[in-house]
């Protein structure tokens, strides 16, 4: 599903998320926002994603919280059990570690453990991403942990229209959704989606068609993949690019259709490669396409190390367009 622009003026991912929250709150009074600094007296969050919401909807619906991650997610879970649709912000993805009990043991499992009597329609917004010299504890991608947790859904937009559409879908969804925002991409401009635009969860997008290799990615690395495509074309390699958009449950149908066509696949993400999302997709593809693949499924992520501070080390950490092109071309030439 592609956005049909009704507004020629481009918007950033940050503005798109803000609009999605505002539109959802305007349409449905059960939608709440809570988190550290999210209300306007606290400047609508550290980068202003929730700016204007408390002024417009009141501080009963948009609540700044203490720095208490367990209390934030617990409050969201409890409110969701009695009919609300809270959007809870955990400022940075590394801080989800402090609230893992609430997320993994409670939000993800209450539907199952109650035999379907209760459910937890919450959205957990969180941001992360290298590039700001934040070092080891402020910019990890930890999506695999949550994708591995039965009951959680995980989404990661790569452009403003999807950021809007996935947020609207996440708020409407009856189950807990982790919504991963990328800090270096907040100011990336793109087509403005129309009000009410929804990107269904679990549906990937073919960002570019191609014939020689499928590259699956999401979030900021998708931008790097699109950058790699040009260099690949110069080398005579045509790549089909799939933006996963929803990491769990992932869109096997779209990925399978592409790999059936190209016979090759590379999965690129910012998280550490070992035990990452790429491993799940690669294993699934080898089971599905054993004997048909023209090359082993490739994975490209960060090295098995925490995010470094020093600038050249940090720059070498996440996959870049150049590195993606190099690995993808090798997969088409060496086999």
């Amino acid at each position, binding site marked *: 599903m592609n956005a049909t622009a009704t507004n020629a003026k481009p918007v950033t991912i940050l503005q798109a998320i803000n609009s999605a929250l505002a539109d959802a709150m305007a349409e449905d009074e059960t939608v*709440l926002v809570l988190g550290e600094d999210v209300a306007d007296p606290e400047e609508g969050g550290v980068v202003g994603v929730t700016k204007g919401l408390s002024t417009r909807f009141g501080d*009963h*619906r948009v*609540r700044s*919280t*203490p720095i*208490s*991650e*367990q*209390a934030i*997610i*617990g*409050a*969201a*879970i*409890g*409110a*969701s*059990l*009695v*009919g*609300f649709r*809270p959007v809870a912000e955990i400022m940075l993805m590394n801080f989800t570690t402090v609230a893992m*009990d*609430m997320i993994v*043991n*409670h939000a993800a499992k*209450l*539907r*199952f*453990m*109650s*035999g*379907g*009597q*209760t*459910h937890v329609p919450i959205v957990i917004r969180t941001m992360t991403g290298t590039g700001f010299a934040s070092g080891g504890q402020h910019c990890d991608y930890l999506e695999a942990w949550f994708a591995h947790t*039965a*009951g959680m*859904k995980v989404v990661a937009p790569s452009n403003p229209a999807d950021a809007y559409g996935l947020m609207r879908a996440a708020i409407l969804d*009856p*189950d807990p959704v982790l919504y991963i925002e990328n800090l270096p991409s907040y100011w990336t401009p793109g087509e403005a989606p129309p009000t009410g635009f929804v990107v269904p969860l*679990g549906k990937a997008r073919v960002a570019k068609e191609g014939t020689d290799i499928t590259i699956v990615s999401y979030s900021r690395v998708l931008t790097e993949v699109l950058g790699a495509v040009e260099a690949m074309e110069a080398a005579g390699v045509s790549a089909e690019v799939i933006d996963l958009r929803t990491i*769990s*449950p992932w869109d096997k149908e779209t990925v399978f259709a592409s790999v059936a066509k190209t016979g090759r696949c590379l999965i690129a993400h910012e998280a550490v490669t070992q035990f990452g999302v790429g491993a799940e997709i690669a294993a699934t593809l080898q089971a599905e396409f054993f004997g048909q693949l023209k090359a082993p499924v490739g994975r490209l992520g960060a090295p098995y190390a925490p995010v470094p501070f020093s600038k050249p080390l940090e720059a070498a950490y996440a996959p870049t367009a150049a590195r993606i092109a190099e690995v993808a071309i090798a997969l088409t030439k060496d086999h």
Partner: protein
Amino acid sequence: MTSTYAPDRTTLFGIYKRVALLKANDERSRKVIMTGRLVMPYYSYRGQEVIPAAMATALTDDDYWVTIYRGIHDMLAKGMPLNDLWAEIAGRVDGTCKGKGGPMHLTYPEKGIMVTTGIVGSSMPIANGIAWGSQLKGNNRVTVATFGDGATNIGAFHESLNLASVWKLPVIFLCQNNLYSEHTTYEKATAAKRVADRAAAYNMPGVRVNGNDPVEMYAAAREAVDRARAGDGPTLIEAMTFRFYGHVFGDADAYMDKGQKQAAMDADPVPLFRARLIAEGIATEAELVAIEAEIETRIDTAVEFALASAFPDLGELTRDVYAEGEVA
């Protein structure tokens, strides 16, 4: 305790009826496990019955409760039906959670029993959220979170009390202080002399009561309920009690002081309460015998109902992970 909130004779009798049910149900649970009819992890609450019985009597059906793995007394007090309870702890399809929750994860929203958690300290953050919902709806419902003394050393306890106080949430933090955190004594695990003292750090009333005394416990519960309903925010109640058996039923409980345990069992709150009803002319021996016999019959029925119920079909393995039709 002030007399403002003292239970009248009818209320006191009502509390006893709940207490008698809880005691009989615990005794039956241990018996059913020991005779091998059911296999389950069981966290006996024997000795702690008065606390939830008095708390539940101070609430309405509409009020909410979030409890923990040692919480079957809380649920029965709040009104979970015996058949549904027993079928659930037997892992059967007629259980409140289709057998998928079990004794540590019981849910029964119809009576306000929203979550039972197996994680120490996790009842409180979720109770806050439910109470926040009531505050937003203005529906006057109160939420109770129960937990043991060990939970007051978990970060979630401190985060929750702080948030509840800042937001003035209609929530009651009810600590059932049975003097043991799993196998470790209160003194070894808890720096505060009294759990109730911790409330001061969060600018909320903290009261310590004899949780085994129905009059004292009910008064504290009523006062906290009224305060929450009036919009005056949370209360921490530290109800002193004693757990007669080990952490999980069947453990050796060698870590428990034998003299302390014997003294607590000699002061069993249930027969004391029973004798009090007769002494004060609230009930006759014959009335109590009839009530207790009826409870035994109801439990007989529930146990047989549970054991006759089918196990869930294997399709339940992957059902309720997401909403129906949203299986990954």
